[in-house]
């Protein structure tokens, strides 16, 4: 059975036995190149669920407070390895009720970066299929081109060490082949930026954050950022974060988001993918995670029995003078 069939079967069983009231997975949107979150609450509708190389959405987002209006419903949810770490981060803070949650882990072999493919065409992409490591892309005008999948992986998949879910009630199919989880993380992308001179880095930050439009997609899509209507970034009095949209204010805005999810953000990349103006947000988050790893050898959301590092302390911590 393919992983897609496994997901459908697990969803069907969970829905028909009443284990869950609704099940969150992925489905195709208006064309097969777009995959969106799907909410299924009838066993008969599970066949809309898909699993393919475009299922990048981190569905944990939909477990956030006030995200849905059915607070007491029992929820089934599909998580990839990276998604499961955000789920575990929420569990570490007791923000989800495990009793009402049914988690299906979906082993993942790396997903395709649709944005990267978009850049190869001026036309609109309407279909993307993958087989044997080759991505086939069809455009609106009918052009079809093939690309090697390895070159068009999501950035987050490139350094992924958690191809299987960290926490799951059931797993859709046999686990994916995984390198050593406990190996030292690779930070080549961050190191490249650290190597920039102050002037270069400054110029770069100003340039990329000047395009931010403060749509709050990054914040609202972030699975571990749950203040929602109480977000400090929206606060006017005190006006902690300037409501003016300019490069400086935008950088503060993003830094606030980043530091508030410090120790809970596993760099799943959801903010990156949601940003309509393609600001490389995960760059900052990755840098932060590098520092956190450096400080505590801690990886956010990796173990259920850990506490996020900024919500606990050790007396013997050796920071400062």
């Amino acid at each position, binding site marked *: 059975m393919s992983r897609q069939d496994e997901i459908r079967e697990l969803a069907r069983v969970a829905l028909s036995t009443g284990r869950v*009231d*609704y099940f969150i997975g992925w*489905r*195709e*949107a*208006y*064309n097969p190149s*777009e995959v*969106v*979150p*799907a*909410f*299924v*609450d*009838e066993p008969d*509708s599970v066949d*809309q669920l898909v699993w393919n190389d475009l299922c990048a*959405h981190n569905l944990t*987002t*939909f477990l956030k407070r*006030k*995200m*849905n*209006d*059915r*607070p*007491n*419903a029992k929820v089934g949810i599909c998580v990839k390895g990276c998604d499961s770490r955000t789920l575990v981060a929420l569990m570490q803070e007791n923000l989800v009720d495990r009793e009402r949650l049914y988690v299906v882990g979906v082993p993942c072999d790396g997903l395709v970066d649709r944005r990267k493919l*978009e*850049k190869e065409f*001026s*036309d*609109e992409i*309407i279909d993307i299929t993958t087989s044997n490591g080759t991505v086939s892309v069809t455009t*609106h*005008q009918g052009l079809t081109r093939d690309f090697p999948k390895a070159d068009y992986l999501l950035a987050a998949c490139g350094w992924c060490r958690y191809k299987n879910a960290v926490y799951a009630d059931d797993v859709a199919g046999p686990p994916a082949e995984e390198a050593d989880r406990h190996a030292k993380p690779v930070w080549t992308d961050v190191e490249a930026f650290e190597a920039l001179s102050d002037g270069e880095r400054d110029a770069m930050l100003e340039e990329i954050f000047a*395009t931010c*439009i*403060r*749509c*709050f*997609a990054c*914040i*609202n*899509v972030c699975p571990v950022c749950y203040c*929602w*209507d109480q977000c400090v970034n*929206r606060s*006017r009095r005190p*006006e902690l974060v*300037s*409501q*003016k*949209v*300019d490069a400086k204010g935008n950088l503060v805005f993003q830094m606030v988001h980043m530091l508030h999810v410090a120790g809970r953000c596993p760099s799943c990349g959801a903010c990156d*993918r*949601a940003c*309509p*103006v*393609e600001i490389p947000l995960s760059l900052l988050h990755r840098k932060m995670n590098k520092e956190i790893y450096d400080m505590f050898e801690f990886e956010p959301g990796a173990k259920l029995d850990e506490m996020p590092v900024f919500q606990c302390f050790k007396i013997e911590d050796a920071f400062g003078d």
Partner: protein
Amino acid sequence: MTIKYLAQDQLAAFLAHLAERARVVAPISEDGVVLFRNWEPGRQVDLEVLLAKQAPKEFMFPQTEEYLKFSYRMDTPVVDESAPPAGASDDGQVEAALPHEVIEVQAENAAPAQIIFGLRPCDARGFVQMDQVFGGYGGFYFDPLYNAKREATTLLAVTCRDPRSTCFCTAIGGCPAGHEGVDALFTQVDGGFTVEPLTEKGEAATDFAALRDASEGEAAEAAEVKVQATTRVDVPFEIDGVRDNLKANFEGTSWQDLCLRCISCGTCTYVCPSCYCFSVNDSLVETKGERYRVWDNCFNPTYTLETSGHNPREKKVNRFRNRFSHKFWYYQDKYDSLLCSGCGRCIMHCPTRIDIREVLRVMGAPAGVPEAAGAASNSAELPATDGKEA
């Protein structure tokens, strides 16, 4: 008016000519991200990508716009010492006077000439829709900030030769070669553009030596391009009756299903050519401050939050419903027109690809038939949640 012709290799010269007289804005690709930016000689205009990420509305209606400056003088209490505070009742505890006085309030409203080149007819139509809001039509107030910029702006639109699958301008009365709001329409033909000046402003902007009269063949080719483009735009829903049905379906349970995957961000509104809501804020640093307006959107939880803590649109579904109702019902009641130009940006850029066409198919259909409308959609059927609400 005569149709003119501009050779592709003369485009840069033409823009340079315009740039001498005004600020020129055009879709420019930076690192593969196409946005409207200031054009300067040497920069490449990107017309291959059909739609820039954002509509060019920020040039008429900047995201942050300071409109009032003020300063306090901190040293001069102006309380008339001789006059007792007559009104203060016995228990009136009027707090100590802050020794300040506004000494200066300035309204700023500069609008240098600008030319937007390379926007699409739907983008221009978005401005026409905003014109009504800011222009005082229908009995509202006249907004001097927007209108000053609007009057100083010339819109040189380019026909959409290859509409996207998400385009639906023809469904709501637009056209890939539409004239609404456009000052001069450029159409890409073999080796260059045909140019149709449509207004005096367009006439003035296209008065340039490199533009010659188009040959009959070129004009015919342009006409053919327009017809071809128009036929290729989908008509994904029937606009007739949408307003009445939105009204009838206001309490419909399908809103709940449609907004399930909405994350309540504001992307759709900020990329939209016609969404215009804004917020007003003050900032004060020491003695100097300004009042500015900044884009806001109905998905912002604090958009309608009242001081008492009451929020008329507390839930995601209320805010979601407001956006579509505003575009196709409230706005129509006020201005007798629609607040959507069919560019499809909200579909393309929504982080969860919420499809306005699907929303209108379901909620814009007569009550009681949304299931049928949903089945006809090209996307997967929506799960029904009837009877399962907590």
